[in-house]
């Protein structure tokens, strides 16, 4: 709750900072300091020091899981700010406002991962979504950005409608919005409840870009300014997944076998196949990453399918690994002149450090051992395997699709290392801080891959 309040305050602060602070670097520093503070208070809360005490009326619940997730989000946001905040200048003039919106999104994330009431979930998701519509359209002169924004908005609003219908049905059956009241199940769930649950499932699938509700994602990630696309495709999506898993664990956990496990399984398969196969043919790295984010969502969905400790912990690691890697690649991409695969040709010669970091990111995304990406995929597969007796089909499809993912991820590596650059410089110059941050992220990925207890330790102790 420290983080919740602080993030809202920071949003306001940033909103006004644009008014008073003319120098962008100061705004930037302020934002970085803010997120650092956010991280700090969240860690404090994890260790029991709570700055603000409220009676949440059972609507919010900050447990270790959500706090740990918040910490991950804040830490990665910090890195994201360090890496990409300079590139936000290119988007438009409302520099400080972008930060304000991101802080609001963080606030929404905190809500969405800590809710105990469907109302809070709804509000949290809306608080995340509305700034994202804006950020997507932040590049006002860019028609692609406009288009993405409007598409996102229309579909987002539509899915909100679906979600509300679902909530209404659930309310109709259970008479409450509190998860604790929804969860108990006496006998067979009623059709109303199941319909509501399914509608919620659709809405959450939409927000987390699970096929076949994913159609917005490639267009939006492609059209949105690259700096924001990376944030949206990673942390926000991760938060939605955490919300997803909390909802289905706390509210519909008892219906798992009877009502939704099979459907989630089907969605997983469809997501994995559509995400991976479609990514194969992409020519633009940015769009490839958009599809890959769908593919990764398929893997994350396995944790919901499984709904066990391995799955939940794995999801945390997954979000961390996936976000670090994707943000890193997007950050470099934002500096590239050419977003196609050819644009990466010969990068290893010009920017060895950058290329090396990207390689680690890609290995992690592809799930190669020694990286956190592997371990998270491993946990997902393990969770899925342990969740039932007949899950082998799902796991095998997942694994085959992971192999397909290698196909498109490695095109970047091939371009960077094995092909010669056609033009002089593929990338605009990068600062040492940028390089070091990239390296740090790569190191983090490897460290988490070798010692996941760095992360899980927080959960258990």
């Amino acid at each position, binding site marked *: 709750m420290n983080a919740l309040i602080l993030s809202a305050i920071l949003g306001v602060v940033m909103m006004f900072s644009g008014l008073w602070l003319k120098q962008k670097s100061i705004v930037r520093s302020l934002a970085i300091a803010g997120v650092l503070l956010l991280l700090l208070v969240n860690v404090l809360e994890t260790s029991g020091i709570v700055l603000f005490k409220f009676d949440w009326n059972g609507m919010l619940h900050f447990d270790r899981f959500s706090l740990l997730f918040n910490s991950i989000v804040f830490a990665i946001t910090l890195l994201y700010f360090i890496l990409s905040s300079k590139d936000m200048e290119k988007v438009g003039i409302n520099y400080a406002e972008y930060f304000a919106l991101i802080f609001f999104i963080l606030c929404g994330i905190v809500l969405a991962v800590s809710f105990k009431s469907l109302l809070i979930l709804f509000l949290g998701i809306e608080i995340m979504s509305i700034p994202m519509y804006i950020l997507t359209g932040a590049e006002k002169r860019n028609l692609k950005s406009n288009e993405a924004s409007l598409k996102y908005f229309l579909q987002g609003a539509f899915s909100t409608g679906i979600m509300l219908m679902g909530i209404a049905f659930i309310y109709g059956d259970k008479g409450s919005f509190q998860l604790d009241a929804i969860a108990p199940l006496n006998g067979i769930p009623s059709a109303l409840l199941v319909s509501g649950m399914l509608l919620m499932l659709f809405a959450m699938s939409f927000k987390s870009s699970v096929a076949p509700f994913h159609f917005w994602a490639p267009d939006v990630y492609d059209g949105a300014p690259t700096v924001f696309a990376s944030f949206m495709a990673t942390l926000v999506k991760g938060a939605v997944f955490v919300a997803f898993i909390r909802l289905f664990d706390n509210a519909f956990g008892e219906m798992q076998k009877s009502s939704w496990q099979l459907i989630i399984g089907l969605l997983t398969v469809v997501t994995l196949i559509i995400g991976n196969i479609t990514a194969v043919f992409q020519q633009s790295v940015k769009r490839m990453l958009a599809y890959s984010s769908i593919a990764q969502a398929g893997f994350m969905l396995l944790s919901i399918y499984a709904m066990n400790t391995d799955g939940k*912990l794995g999801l945390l690691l997954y979000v961390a690994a996936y976000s670090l890697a994707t943000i890193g690649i997007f950050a470099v991409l934002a500096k590239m002149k050419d977003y196609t695969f050819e644009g990466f040709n010969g990068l290893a010669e010009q920017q060895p450090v950058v290329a090396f970091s990207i390689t680690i990111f890609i*290995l992690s995304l592809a*799930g*190669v*051992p*020694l990286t956190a990406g*592997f*371990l998270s995929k*491993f*946990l997902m*597969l*393990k969770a899925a*395997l*342990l969740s039932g007796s007949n899950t*082998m089909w799902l*796991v*095998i499809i997942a*694994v*085959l699709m*992971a*192999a397909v993912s*290698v*196909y498109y991820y*490695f095109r970047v590596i*091939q371009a960077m*290392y*094995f*092909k010669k650059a056609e033009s002089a410089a593929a990338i605009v110059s990068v600062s040492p801080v940028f390089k070091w941050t990239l390296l740090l992220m790569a190191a983090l990925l490897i460290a988490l891959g070798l*010692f*996941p*207890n760095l992360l*899980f330790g927080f959960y258990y102790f």
Partner: protein
Amino acid sequence: MIAVLLIVIPLVTGIAAFFIQNEKTVRAWSLFASLAVLAASLFGLFLSGNNQWLEYNHEWLQVMGSSFALKLDAMGQILCLLNALAYVLIFIATWNRSYEKANRFFGLMLLTQAGMMGVFLAMDAMLFYFFWELALIPIYFICSRWGGERRIAATFKFFIYTFVGSLLMLIGIIYLQSKTPDHSFSISSFYHLNQTLSGKEQSFLFWLFFIAFAVKMPIFPFHTWQPETYQQSTPAGTMVLSAIMVKMGVLGVIRWLMPVLSIGAETWSYTVIPLALIGIIYASLIAYRSDDIKKLIAYSSIAHIGLMFVAVFAVNQIAMQGVIIQMFNHGINVLGLWIVVELIERKTGISKISELGGLAQKAPSMTIFFVIIALASVALPLTNGFVGEFLMLTGIMRIHSQYYLWFTAFAGAGIILGAIYTLRMITKIFYGEVKEAVTNITDIRWNEKLVLGVIVVLIFWWGIYPQSILNFTSEFSKEIVDKINILQFLPSKTGL
């Protein structure tokens, strides 16, 4: 401790190599590193039986039930020795070859070595998988970065192939782990599973593991990545791949597949043994008609490995001994062949058999070495190849199956076909009139002579007095066979 050293030395020196800009320095540095590894490996041999030196166990990834467990058993010793020795030989033999971005090349080479060492030593499935992939990534970079024109596509195929295989294995590992009572990845826990898993599970899991190993070895029909990769990648990469890396698959079958899933293996033995046998004949026949030396050796390697695979399925001590020493022998022999091929290619730029000829007149020493090594690879008596193949075939003859004669006949037919294609290659490359393309070739230099000399010495040493190594591995092979045989392999189909 030795086990750790074997991994750490190449790992650390490999990482360090990335930072050495001067090509000469980095070359010397890697040679030094590989010598250090060899020294460690020899020291390990010297200490054999002294378990506190050969074992290492440290907590790691407890949250998942994995630990950092290494052990240098007899098979590990042999393969680590092969790994260490082959690297020294490769570095010396390719001393004169110049690489663009040499620091990266040598760094990656050493990382590959570390990965392979880990595979040979790991006693924990998770760790095994880690190293399995760690070995794959750098070699992929090596082959893809320094090589022929179509290298990118060829090695990518290799990568995808292996990656699919290893992911399937990963499923198998996870599944097995979930079945262990203590939720552990340790090999001893896995061994206990053999009796508790149902036949259905085993026969399913068998394929998950088998495909991974079959791709690596490779076993027909999972082999098509190999010839092209060998042809396209840089010689040092090819040497590593064919001399050492394919042994990862064989080791996997011996250590991780057969004793863990012996019922599954038995269920499918009548499927996979014929596959391997077909592979032997198939690869030999293709080798016979190949016009590219590299492809020829690649296919011959498929045939040799197929024989090893069948021998593992014979499940008796003789065959197992044969396989274990043949792993080393094949590594050394094929390395020797590649070294000569590399020389020829470096000096003439040709690897087409039809364009070569008469090298014996230009490079007699090279010819002699090549012929000796080639003869060892066709299992001529008094060479190391004979001992291995003899033991393996003897073992296959004892297989508990009514088809034992067929198995032996097909497996042995590889010996005849091996002679046919090997002689054809020797004749066409070295004999006959000097072809125009090779008129400028010179004989080999001291470093190459040294390397080939070492190989030849090993060929004869282990060919004439194989007992030195057989004694060393006999206990291990007996143990492993007993483990596989715990429910009597192929019991219902005895023919002998």
